[in-house]
């Protein structure tokens, strides 16, 4: 696959140039990568399985809150045990998705959209109202990033490389998944679920598994998200966060995995970087969305595909 080499090349160049970028730009690059992981998990649902999820921020939130609570209440996850927290975060994301999936997978199309939205808001409600655990609307402030094996993640460049590593690992894991027979069955479900069912596939189970896996990657991104910002707040879990991720996928090109990263890059840099330069950044972002939907139904990745469908 050419796309993968191009992606690796681009990431390699970014990694080489990163030490020369300003500190704020490095922070934004790390943002793009973390959101890129969430976007890929949404893409697994939207692009490959045909399930538009509007609640992906919930899993990110579960991972992030777990990380923050463990770190601040128990001092856990600030050394080698960071890797345990990564596992726990993925497990928590997957478990939440496994529970929500029982309700959500029954539906499809707009109904799936609405159910995932509602379930996502449940997580927000918990974060906002369970003051003793989550700090309510004040959120949780973390006291610093982990240190292990002589690596101080408090250094933004080091943290950026760690996030880059996680992104590449996630990308390959998900790429392997979608190229496997299981991945092909998901595409089959997206194209025509009834036919897949007649062929003897348990389509409910396939969709459910995809949903749980997406939740796990959401949880992973959450762990990184908490350490990236140093604060976890209910606004991380709010509806706009989920909408953003969905838009990133649509913008980048669903069904490509890479598209999620591209979309995240465009959105983060337009929003965070352009906003520091000009007041009218919102119009630019709006125009980009509208133009993409009007002229690039395949997203930005659609540009590279040429004539192939």
């Amino acid at each position, binding site marked *: 696959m050419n796309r993968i080499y191009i992606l690796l090349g681009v990431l390699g160049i970014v990694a080489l140039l990163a030490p020369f970028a*300003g*500190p*704020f730009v490095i*922070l934004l690059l790390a*943002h793009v990568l973390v959101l890129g992981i969430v976007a890929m998990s949404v893409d697994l649902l939207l692009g490959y399985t045909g399930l538009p999820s509007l609640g992906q921020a919930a899993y990110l939130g579960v991972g992030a809150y777990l990380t923050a609570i463990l770190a601040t209440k128990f001092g856990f996850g600030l050394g080698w045990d960071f890797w345990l927290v990564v596992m726990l975060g993925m497990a928590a994301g997957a478990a939440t998705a496994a529970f929500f999936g029982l309700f959500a997978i029954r539906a499809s199309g707009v109904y799936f959209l609405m159910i995932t939205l509602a379930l996502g808001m449940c997580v927000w409600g918990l974060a906002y109202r369970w*003051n003793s655990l989550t700090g*309510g*609307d*004040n*959120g949780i*402030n973390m*006291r610093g990033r982990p240190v292990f094996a002589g690596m101080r993640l408090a250094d933004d460049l080091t943290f950026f490389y760690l996030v880059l590593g996680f992104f590449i690992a996630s990308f390959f894991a998900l790429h392997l998944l979608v190229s496997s027979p299981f991945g092909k069955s998901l595409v089959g479900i997206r194209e025509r679920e009834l036919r897949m069912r007649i062929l003897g596939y348990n389509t409910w189970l396939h969709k459910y598994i995809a949903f749980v896996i997406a939740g796990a990657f959401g949880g992973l991104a959450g762990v990184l998200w908490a350490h990236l*910002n*140093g*604060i976890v*707040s209910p*606004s*991380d879990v709010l509806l706009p966060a989920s909408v953003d991720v969905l838009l990133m996928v649509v913008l980048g090109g669903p069904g490509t995995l890479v598209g999620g990263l591209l979309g995240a890059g465009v959105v983060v840099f337009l929003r*965070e970087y352009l*906003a*520091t330069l000009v*007041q009218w950044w*919102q119009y630019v972002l709006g125009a980009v969305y509208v133009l993409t939907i009007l002229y690039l139904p395949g997203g930005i990745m659609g540009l590279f595909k040429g004539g192939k469908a």
Partner: protein
Amino acid sequence: MNRKLLAALAALALSTGASAQELKIGFLAPMTGIFAQIGKDMENGFQMYLDEQKGNFAGAKVTFIVEDEEGKPPVSVRKAEKLARQDQVQMMVGGLLASTGYAIAPVSTRLKTVYIPSVPAADDLTQRDLAQYPYMVRTGWTSSQPHHPLGRWACDNGYTRVVAIAADYAFGHEVVGGFQKVFEDCGGRIVQKIWPPLGTKDFGPYIPTIKQDADAIFSLMVGPMALQFPKQLAEAGIKKPIIGGGTSYDEFVLPSMGDEVLGHVSALQYSAALDTPKNREFVRKYREKYGKVPSYYSESNYTTAQMIHEVMKQTKGKWPGPEKFISLMVSLKLDAVRGPVRFDEMRNPIQNIYIKKVEKKKMFGYEKDELWNSVIQTYPDVSQFWTYGKDAFLKQPVYSRDFPPCKYCN
């Protein structure tokens, strides 16, 4: 060759000229989203003082960089990092919500940059958590600060049974907590607490549950909630006296209100109707420049700019470094627009608290009848600990939904 040398010399001269004495101030306020207009009030206040000084604080040229924090804690962290690292500001000012204050303060500690929360009122920033934030000094208020005296005032004015209805988040909890603590210590009783979620527009489910035998209602509303609640209360025919938390009737919401709020009482460290020469002048100039009456958001940031200027006067325009700046700042005694202000040992202002009543009248020579927060009583030199003393006060937990407990609620 000569020309090149000259050019190089000129460039050198220019660069030293520019770096002479500069003060970079990063300003965080919501510029988009539901709080955008409040953010505008904040920026206007600071900008007005800067314009009055022609952008020059005792010889230091002020660079004023405004960033949009969107009213969201994670965004404000990102913007604070941008200000401190990319723009290398000497200080960050602002933030709106209590949660934003909590989010920016650790950034200031981490990057050794001064942070001045001019609006965020979270009690613990300058109370139980102060030790974590050595580069922070607050110029605004703590949530409970004006509401301690208000509790006292309620006792003195014969109220004994009060129902509290307040927005359900940390700021609301702290405001109600402060009022309840003092009110119950002087013999009053909070007989019911109702917590509608932040952003509630329809109070239909809550108003009928208000206990009929209460003799007043204490309300804390924020933004659009403040407009809806008095209206719906009046429509429901409830004529009990209303005592309100500071933001329920601040000058940001007051111009949009109707006659239903006449006679409502609230407390804050500033009122646009404060009848002093300083404030009269401030209101006149602000109104001329921005076309509206200044709110406490504007005053707080105007005064913050003035305080920074006072410190810079002492150092003759040279940046003294964050530690020295904080220590100079907290030793200031200022005759500000809101009245005399000095700082307590926990870097929070000691200031007048005004008990205010909404009245319709002409003020400061303006021709039209308008709603004003007339000051009916002044509690001078109120500290964040009220009369309890620092140590005794800090022994109790921070005010929350369950503290002080509602002993008389059944």
